[in-house]
């Protein structure tokens, strides 16, 4: 693990600088957002777009830094076993594979297993989610000139930066659970203990960290969460005024969100079969995700009739409810036990 120390120090130091600048931008955004939300006429409208561009650029820089750290982990931390254990291990793996629906690849000493971590693990997932939100906020900003709508986008961004700083900083202590899992491997020298640790780490490396589905299932869901957040802002605005342009903007983001949510949920299914087997139906996270999908799908159906006054308000209420359902789905991972738990 010492081999990674320099990279971790660089990562933390660079991350701290990015977050410090991002905090400054978020402070300006909060100020601009609060003032413009309360005013009838826009104040300093020209600084709105540059602030959002700055925030999105900083999020992109942070995301690039996370990718760099994962590249270092891939390069520097292979799971190398002593040569004398390899035939024994491969006999064990072959025996396991005979009775398993989805087998583990045999160990190849010429190419030992390496972690190929996706950049949305642990706290990084919030950073990726808010990166998507920042980029979507830029697009939404271009589409709608309303200063109150833009103010809401700024406040949303500021809240997200606040969450990163206070509760989900990916740079302060990078990947704590991942490093807690793999540290014993790099501290252990006795071959028999090393073998035991390998058998603990290898299935998780194969079916979780390095799984192909890991590159599509979570990012699609975070993309949908970002789109639902923009739908939430447009739905709130719809409650205050009947402007079809606001509804159309919300619908455009809802379409993207629904596409990402449905595809992401569907792609989680074969992964769950592979990693957990069949015994995971009615898992709380699955329930809440189906609930979110059902509510969001209802929103998309009702907005077809948004020309009726009742359906206009019902549709905007459902947009807000979809956001509440999304938050509930996210928080479910903390408070409900099951396969997706963060407890």
């Amino acid at each position: 693990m010492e081999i990674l120390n320099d990279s971790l120090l660089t990562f933390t130091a660079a991350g701290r600088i990015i977050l410090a600048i991002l905090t400054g931008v978020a402070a300006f955004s909060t100020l601009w957002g609060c003032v413009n939300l309360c005013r009838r006429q826009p104040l300093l409208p020209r600084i709105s777009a540059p602030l959002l561009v700055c925030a999105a650029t900083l999020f992109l820089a942070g995301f690039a830094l996370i990718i760099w750290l994962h590249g270092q982990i891939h390069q520097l931390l292979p799971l190398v076993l002593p040569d004398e254990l390899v035939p024994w291990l491969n006999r064990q793996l072959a025996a396991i594979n005979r009775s398993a629906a989805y087998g583990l690849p045999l160990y190849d000493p010429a190419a030992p297993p390496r972690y190929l971590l996706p950049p949305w693990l642990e706290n990084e997932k919030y950073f990726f989610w808010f990166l998507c939100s920042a980029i979507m906020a830029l697009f939404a900003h271009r589409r709608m000139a309303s200063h109150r709508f833009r103010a809401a986008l700024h406040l949303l961004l500021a809240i997200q930066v606040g969450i990163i700083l206070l509760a989900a900083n990916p740079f302060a202590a990078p990947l704590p659970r991942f490093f807690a899992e793999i540290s014993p491997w790099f501290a252990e020298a006795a071959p028999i203990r090393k073998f035991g640790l390998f058998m603990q780490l290898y299935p998780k490396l194969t079916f979780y960290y390095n799984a192909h589905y890991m590159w599509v299932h979570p990012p699609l869901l975070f993309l949908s969460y970002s789109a639902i957040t923009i739908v939430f802002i447009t739905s709130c605005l719809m409650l205050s005024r009947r402007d079809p342009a606001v509804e159309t903007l919300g619908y455009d983001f809802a379409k993207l969100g629904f596409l990402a949510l449905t595809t992401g949920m569907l792609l989680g299914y074969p992964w769950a079969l592979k990693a957990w087997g069949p015994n995971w139906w009615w898992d709380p996270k699955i329930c809440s995700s189906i609930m979110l999908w059902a509510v969001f799908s209802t929103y998309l159906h009702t907005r077809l009739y948004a020309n009726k006054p009742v359906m206009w308000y019902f549709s905007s209420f459902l947009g807000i409810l979809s956001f509440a359902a999304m938050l509930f789905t996210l928080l479910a991972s903390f408070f409900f036990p099951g396969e997706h738990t963060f407890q």
Partner: protein
Amino acid sequence: MPQRTASYDYYLILASVVVLFAISAICIYGMFSFKFAQVQNMAPALKYAHMDRLNAIVAPFVVALITILGICIPKRLLPTHWLNRFAVLLLTVAGTVGFAFGAKTALLLILAASLLLQFAVLALALTGSQRIRFERTGYWLRLGSTLMHLGLILFVLDLYFYPYPTLHLALFWATTGATTLGMLFCFYAQPLANLLQPENKEHPACTE
């Protein structure tokens, strides 16, 4: 924003909304019952009993959803008065089959009928036929909507074939393909039409 008045479609949408809300409520109940019963710590047999109990609770609403789907699909092919007759006929036949052979067979019958009709709608949508009845116009939009609904039928059918892993996974990928393509065609009909037929930019291939 589309301008629409109340229609058969509208009431079917309202019925779908009610059923989807009920399923959402059951999902929330499922979450809390999982937590309070500590299902994650149960022996496999008790876990399966918990899943069976929740399956039994949600089953009537899934049946309602399948039935709405069964009534919804022929609306693309039939006028309203024939649609009413078709709905009554479908429910009568399904009820009789259910009484004679069990609820599962009746549901399979509705799903099979829906699937056949949806394939017919798909064929007509693919050929660009004007005989199918959509409230919205445009080739890609109609094709997308058809594929999305085909994906939904395949998904429910896929759950039916859960005990057969190979067929189950094959159907699952067909579901995913149809749904994703359907959403892309339906939601991005205009950019797609512009991309494939740039000369038709002034005569949009779809309207919402």
